[in-house]
């Protein structure tokens, strides 16, 4: 009798689980569907905004001395005489066929430029996040712990100072100070000369990441040169942009370690590590949301840090484009950033969803 009940119950359970499992792909599918209008909207807003930038690109391109007729002809050739929606339609058609246009300040193909520069920026962001996860996340968990160990106590004070300092220090200032100390005065690290020294030759282009490409080519001197050139930019980004993650994780950890379930866990005789892990699971929810925001900030903060260190990544490219009213690169940069950010957000929501059973998928039947 009871075994029959067991079988029936487990059958019900399997069906419930299956329904849950089926809901997730549907949710992801819907989110990706949303991505299309979102990206269209973003690209249109950017398109309109960029066209409002002061300065006439045709005049920019031909110089102040060119005759008015030539400027007029170029304007027609660039479709600048059409209305913004018409221009947008043309741009969209080109973009969808893989043609991102030409930069008129550099005369280069924007698609090519992106291919060169996106890996640089992704490499910076990835390495910075890696440092945050390897160094700051464990620090936040340990320093929030209830232990009255003197080492934890000392660490707590040091990292508390860090949390405050990192929030207060502008990335570009930290970058300049690092250069002043480690290059100008101590001469330990390379200065703001870009991704490699002047005498280094870049490895053959495969992925665009110097570290990976140099590894593939087996060129270790270039690898180390690239790594040394990355130390200051990555440290700057991780130090400044890891702070919100660190602060959020620690404050959530403190709340979780103060909660009733932690006391009860101790009453159950759970190992200190288990108790810490249980608290960390709860704290991770809000932290994941902040990590998503930080990744987005990294893409923006990267703009300044790349400019200071001359990394010739995407950020520096965008700044130059805005200053010279260069339509195509700005447009391409913003669209890339938008898609990248929205995929990050989707990932954040999914992770958050997977971690917390209390959160129900929006709009799902319950």
């Amino acid at each position, binding site marked *: 009798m009871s075994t029959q009940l067991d079988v029936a119950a487990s059958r019900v359970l399997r069906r419930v689980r299956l329904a849950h499992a089926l809901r997730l792909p549907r949710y992801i599918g819907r989110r990706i569907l949303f991505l299309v209008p979102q990206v269209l909207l973003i690209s249109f807003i950017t398109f309109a905004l960029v066209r409002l930038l002061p300065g006439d690109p045709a005049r920019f391109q031909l110089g102040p001395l060119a005759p008015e007729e030539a400027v007029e002809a170029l304007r027609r050739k660039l479709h600048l005489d059409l209305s913004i929606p018409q221009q947008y339609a043309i741009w969209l058609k080109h973009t969808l066929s893989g043609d991102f246009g030409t930069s008129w300040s550099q005369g280069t193909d924007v698609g090519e430029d992106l291919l060169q520069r996106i890996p640089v920026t992704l490499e910076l962001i990835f390495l910075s996040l890696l440092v945050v996860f390897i160094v700051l996340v464990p620090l936040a968990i340990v320093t929030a712990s209830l232990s009255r160990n003197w080492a934890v106590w000392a660490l707590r004070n040091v990292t508390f100072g860090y949390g405050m300092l990192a929030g207060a220090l502008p990335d570009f200032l930290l970058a300049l100070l690092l250069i002043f100390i480690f290059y100008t005065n101590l001469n330990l690290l390379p200065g703001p000369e870009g991704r490699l020294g002047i005498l280094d030759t870049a490895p053959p282009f495969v992925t665009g990441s110097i570290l990976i490409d140099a590894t593939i080519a087996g060129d270790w001197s270039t690898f180390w040169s690239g790594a040394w050139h990355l130390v200051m930019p990555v440290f700057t980004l991780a130090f400044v942009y890891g702070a919100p993650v660190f602060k959020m994780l620690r404050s959530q950890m403190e709340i979780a370690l103060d909660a009733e379930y932690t006391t009860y866990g101790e009453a159950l005789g759970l190992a200190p590590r288990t108790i810490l892990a249980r608290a960390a699971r*709860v704290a991770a929810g809000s932290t994941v949301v902040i990590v998503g925001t930080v990744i987005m900030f990294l893409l923006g903060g990267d703009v300044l840090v790349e400019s200071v260190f001359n990394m010739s990544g995407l950020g520096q490219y965008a700044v130059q484009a805005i200053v010279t009213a260069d339509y195509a690169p700005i447009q391409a940069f913003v669209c890339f950033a938008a898609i990248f950010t929205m995929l990050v957000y989707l990932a954040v929501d999914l992770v958050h969803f997977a971690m917390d059973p209390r959160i129900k998928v929006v709009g799902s039947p319950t």
Partner: protein
Amino acid sequence: MWLRISSTLRQLPLWQLVFLALFALIVVLTAIGPDLAPYSTINACPSDRLVPPSAAHWLGTDDNGIDILSRLLAAPRTDVVIAVIATAISVLLGSPLGVVIALLESRRRGGSTVVAEIAMRLLEVIQAFPVFVFAMVLVAVFGGTKVNIIAAIAFVNTPVFVRLVRSDVLSLVQRPFAEAARAVGNSEWRVGFRHILPNAIPTILVQLSVTIGFAILLTAGLSFVGAGVKPPTPELGSMIASGAKFLIIGQWWPAVFPGIALGLIVFSFGVFGEVMTKFMEPRAIRSATWRTGMTTETDDAPVIGIVAPTTNAILAVRDLEVTPLQPGASPLLSGVSFSLGAGERMAIVGESGAGKSVLVKAVLGLLPAQLQVNSGQVRYGEVDLLNLDKSKLRSLRSKHIAATLANAKSQLHPLTTVGGTFAAALAAHQKVSAPEARRRSIELLRMVGMNDPERRLEAYPHELSGGMAQRVCIALALMYRPRLLIADEPTAGLDVTVQRQVLDLMEKLAREAGTAQLIVTSDLGIAAHYCDKVAVMQAGRVIEINETRAFFDAPVHPYSRQLLDSVRL
């Protein structure tokens, strides 16, 4: 109000006070800074270019020969005003929007969720623009006036608050207090704004201190790349930018001093936010009530009834005193003594606030950090529990000394299934395979009268009723057939049949395994039928202990009589 401010300030470490003072100074400088400048803040003086710090120019001069100190005094008016106004706009727009979206989502009605979903996706569109570049484009398009910079910064920061408040409200909306507020007839919106939003304020404040700092940095950053406030105006970012090229060749003062100023300003705002968070913390208020709210009415009269220590006691408590950590606080427990032999069951009764739960936590060694044991002894057999090292104490817990705590539903870890909690509790003391753990958990759940235990193992605490959570906790406590069971309101939330079932089970445990039991209850019926002894607590003291029969026949202490009369009526 003033009292709380001054008491909060007194608790702060010195360095925070220093930065609070600096914060006040920055506010003053924002108001009158430009008038204090000893030199002109915008007129170039080519003969004095790049003078190092000296008596005439304390912080040196920049590449235009302008006194850096003068420019620094004038700069907060630009940076701080822009950032504070922009952040205020983001919070005021973002928080209500976050509440509204969360409430619409939690309604789970077709129309509402669609609106909420569209709002979230639009928000993503705004956030998908990289903040810095977006602000740059906005400022470049509309011109670098202060109003435009404020608008751009407010616009890019609003979604942060919407998302934060939304995720907080979504997790709070199912909490008991919100359900209770709805149950007594408050409208959904009222519950959202009056009951839930205030609970999200600490998180908002932490974010606020981060965001104001970020807004100041954003203002400076925009100006640093030349897309914000333009150079003649004294502004920190543009000052650092113009000093940067000299920094690299060794002339550090034109960039470093504005940099330090920028850092100090943001830092002071951070400290201010931190202090505000501390000020808002409910914990501080709670401990204040502990300090003042507890009055010891009973005199030092000796406890009435049997006090002679049981020989071979499993649990012996002697003269236990617990006080809050603040100096001058009156004790929450004082002079508590009793002992418990094998198989013996003692009820602890008394009105709420008498110190029953504090006693339970003190005996278990689980007092919150704000409370401490002042004096006294707690012994488990020959073991001194109060001075036992942590790992030894842990090895006793659950296996020898088990406990159920009041309000079972919030005792269970919210992200762990019932089965997961059982597995963790088993793994704490022995190596068990997963199927074996499952088998034992099902058996234990069945013992406490849980129907369909296989399915319950998959349930999360928020899917359990209070009574089911209570039974899960009792099952966990019975897991190792402990020698000592301390149960705080073990039958709260159970219906009468299950209550009897659980109590019979506890009795059986006492009889068969000789488990000594300390049962905190507000139900005198349980004390009368299931316990060997009764201890009455009032205002942190045990005022009477006696055999159950003797106690109910002839209570001695006037308060005990009062307690019994209140039930008999």
